[in-house]
């Protein structure tokens, strides 16, 4: 009796395994294009990623309406959750590549996940297009020729902030500043780049104190009082998305922003919409891809219209960039006139592509798209039910990315290790 039931279990397991492994390898007639998406559907990043996934679906529907890639390869989308954990992201990516036969993986939300799946994509010769995570480390070191980055990276964003802040500091006579950044990869690399660049561009500014709230902090009161006691002329912040909401709300309740300017923190369209009521007007914020900056581009105008029609809301930065990621892939395939990954990869190298943000080019040395960063003043606008940025300054990619010399040096240092 015991042995029999055990045999049954073993047999059932074996059958399951066989079925599952067999199912992945079935023959395909029309050769659809399998597109993998590895994003954080649960946990910290879910808010941004939902928009991203919706935009990907929209782009795919549009392309499929015309028969798919090259008019003959309908796109099938496979979505996996990274749980915002590098291990889970690697598992999801392998699953996408091996079981779903994905030729391209769009992802991820967190930079730690992006750098973890990068070598996996390279190993299996699959394209990897990050459109939300933007740590510079994704393209700076351990370079993978399969990774194409369509979001302004942390260095570019820091440079944009520094250019803006240096100008402001000169105008207002600021002397001292403090930083507050979430204690994890993105917060750290952004803070470090900002401080280093400020030293270069505005050497007279003095950093009085750094604050590092942990990721997931819900109560910032102690940080707020500590910063206010330092009496800096301004504060630069890079706090992770959802923590940022708590921070802004609490700092506002302390009258923080009335006393201390807080220029150049990341306030994406998601936050503009979400905090429409509470956000302080006049705040100088940074974002990565605001749709309202490029409504003169027909591609953007159409995208916003279609997105609004389908989902009844405005697209965030994350939606814009994921949408561009799909179209970057499409143009690579068009240029290569093939869905073969090696050919698409070669076609994308240094390519200039049409995006919702205008015509942009990938840089040869690191496959970073020359996309802009945007600084502006939060202000109400009669056209929208939420505030947008006025006096928008667009810092172009080629004006803000890290000089090639430094990239070569960083890679040489890495090899020596």
């Amino acid at each position, binding site marked *: 009796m*015991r042995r029999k039931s*055990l045999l049954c279990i073993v047999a059932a397991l*074996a059958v399951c395994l066989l079925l599952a492994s067999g199912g992945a*390898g079935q023959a395909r007639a029309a050769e659809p294009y399998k597109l993998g998406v590895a994003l954080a559907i649960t946990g910290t990043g879910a808010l941004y990623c939902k928009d991203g996934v919706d935009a990907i679906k929209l782009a795919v529907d549009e392309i499929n309406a015309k028969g798919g890639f090259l008019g003959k390869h309908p796109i099938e989308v496979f979505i996996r*959750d990274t749980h915002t954990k590098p291990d889970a992201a690697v598992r999801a990516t392998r699953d996408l590549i091996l079981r779903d036969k994905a030729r391209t993986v769009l992802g991820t939300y967190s930079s730690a996940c992006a750098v973890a799946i990068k*070598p996996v994509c390279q190993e299996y010769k699959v394209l990897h297009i990050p459109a939300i995570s933007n740590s510079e480390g994704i393209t700076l070191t351990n370079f993978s020729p399969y990774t194409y980055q369509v979001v302004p990276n942390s260095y570019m964003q820091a440079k944009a902030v520094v250019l803006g802040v240096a100008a402001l500091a000169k105008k207002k006579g600021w002397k001292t500043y403090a930083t507050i950044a979430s204690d994890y990869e993105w917060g750290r690399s952004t803070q470090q780049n900002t401080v280093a660049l400020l030293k270069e561009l505005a050497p007279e500014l003095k950093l009085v104190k750094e604050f590092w709230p942990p990721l997931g902090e819900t109560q910032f009161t102690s940080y707020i009082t500590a910063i206010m006691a330092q009496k800096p002329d301004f504060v630069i912040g890079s706090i992770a998305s959802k923590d940022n909401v708590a921070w802004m709300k609490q700092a506002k309740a302390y009258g923080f922003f009335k006393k201390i300017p807080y220029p150049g923190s990341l306030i994406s369209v998601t936050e503009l919409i979400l905090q429409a009521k509470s956000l302080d007007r006049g705040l100088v914020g940074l974002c990565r891809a605001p749709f309202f900056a490029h409504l003169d581009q027909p591609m953007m105008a159409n995208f916003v219209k279609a997105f609004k029609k389908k989902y009844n809301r405005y697209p965030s930065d994350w939606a814009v960039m994921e949408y561009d990621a799909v179209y970057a892939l499409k143009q690579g395939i068009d240029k290569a006139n093939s869905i073969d990954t090696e050919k698409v990869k070669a076609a994308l190298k240094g390519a200039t592509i049409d995006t919702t943000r205008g015509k942009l080019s990938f840089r040869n040395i690191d496959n970073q798209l020359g996309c802009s960063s945007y600084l502006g003043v939060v202000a109400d606008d009669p056209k929208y039910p939420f505030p947008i940025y006025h006096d928008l300054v667009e810092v172009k990619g080629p004006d803000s990315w890290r000089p090639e010399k430094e990239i070569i040096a960083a890679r040489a240092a890495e090899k020596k290790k």
Partner: protein
Amino acid sequence: MGKKKWAWAGAVFAALLLLPAVLGEFWVLVLTEIVIMGLFAVSFNMIFGYMGQLSFGHAAYYGVGAYTTGLLMVKAGLPLALCLPFSMIMAGAVALVLGYFCIRLTGIYFAILTMAFGQLIFYIIFQWYSFTGGDNGLQGIRPPAMLDGAWSYYYFALLVVTAAVVVMWIISESPFGYTMRAIRDNPQRTRFVGVNTKKYMLINFVVAAMFAGLAGGLWGPFNRSISPDLCNWHQSGVPVFMTIIGGPTGFLGPLIGSVIYTFLMAFVTGFTEYWPLTIGIIITMVVLFMPGGVWGLVERYGAALPARKEPPADSEREAS
């Protein structure tokens, strides 16, 4: 300890040996994960099943092992075969220091102290950017060329894990193992017969941590990268889940748990994002209706095997 048990172990081993021949690459990767996590769970059960204490920070030693191998491979370029023993030594050394305090406590306090230490180690790895790479983790951990394929790495992992599990089996059946059981069942009486229970517990704790470190060492090259999440308390929960599902009373229980847990995860995450809900419900069901896990079932219905210490049947207690 009958022949049947050996037949059992042999059948499992044969299955693990032969299955990859008919499986696709993805499922071979899942199998690799099963054996590595299986080793982790079996090592956890040395503390849980044989010492009777719940460690909720076992992932710390797993993580220390993973980082030892990862750092040695990436920064010093040492071959994998040399890194793995170092992983065991490092995990053991850390366990010696922390275990010294942990084994003084029992029950809930033991669980929480191991958890607090685990979080501390997580925190150190997370914060020490210049050395560990912080929360970005370490990338570029590739196994040597001859093991750099799904199949070859699987067989390598299987070999190492089998050897480790056999050693743990020998330990658990040795006088040392029986002393541990005695300490679990009646620490006072064991002390009275002249056994230095603290020393025994500490040794057991260190040995368990060493094998967790070995499992961690195997993980990095498999996953190509490691991150501090490997030491977080969520990760400490995984071997607990596996052991409870598989059954803590059998030596192979945690391994069975690893098979079920890992396979289910690969299967379920393929079509739904609600993996936590799924595993949560499974755990609830096992705790409520299947105490003792799969192994408990086997023991209860396997009349041929001598009955071991079993948790009391809950249905009777319910009535009161």
